[in-house]
């Protein structure tokens, strides 16, 4: 399974990522997901989210997840982009693409990867409200 992991502060350029897809002739399904910063967090309006990561561990934990995906499903490739730093409302923070022979495994693997990411990959978010404060009580 090919892996491509991009974790940095650059804006996510989906229009560039989609045409970079490589798919061999045995593959029939591409499932991709874009996660976008919503304008509300816990019923309070926000301007954006500040993403922080423990980068070295992020890379390692994603690779453990990719190892597991490789065992579970016959996937051709996974590409994952997570933006860090300041991401404004309506901009994407996460982009994932899974290529597989059939849609069943592509959907299953994509959902599983995002669910597991939110369980084990050390990235945190701090929503920032209109006033520049953090509206969510985090402690």
């Amino acid at each position: 399974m090919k892996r491509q992991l991009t974790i940095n502060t650059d804006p996510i350029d989906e229009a560039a990522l989609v045409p970079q897809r490589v798919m061999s002739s045995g593959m029939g399904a591409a499932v991709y997901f874009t996660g976008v910063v919503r304008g509300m967090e816990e019923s309070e309006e926000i301007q954006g989210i500040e993403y922080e990561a423990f980068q070295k561990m992020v890379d390692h934990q994603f690779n453990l997840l990719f190892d597991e995906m490789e065992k579970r499903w016959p996937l051709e490739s996974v590409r994952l982009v997570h933006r860090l730093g300041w991401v404004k409302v309506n901009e994407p923070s996460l982009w994932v693409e899974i290529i597989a022979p059939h849609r069943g495994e592509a959907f299953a693997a994509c959902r599983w990867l995002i669910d597991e990411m939110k369980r084990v990959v050390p990235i945190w978010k701090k929503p920032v409200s209109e006033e520049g404060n953090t509206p969510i009580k985090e402690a």
Partner: protein
Amino acid sequence: MRVSVHFYSYFKELTGCAETAETLPEGSTINDLLKLLIARFPKLGAMQNSTLIAVGVEYQGRSYVLKEGEEVSLFPPVQGG
């Protein structure tokens, strides 16, 4: 022995620092380290049940036996995406 300790997300605000170090007897566990840290940073105490702990880049449980020079990281539940 000496281990370095790193805090992430709002744990940095609870402790007032991103990084510190602790000296412990040989054979000490993460649990022993946690007790020392809570004594120094009492606000960490309320977080105990939701604290995630890594040594290097791997998650470890409270009974993990620490070794000289290891890097321990403490952080709240992750929330990427």
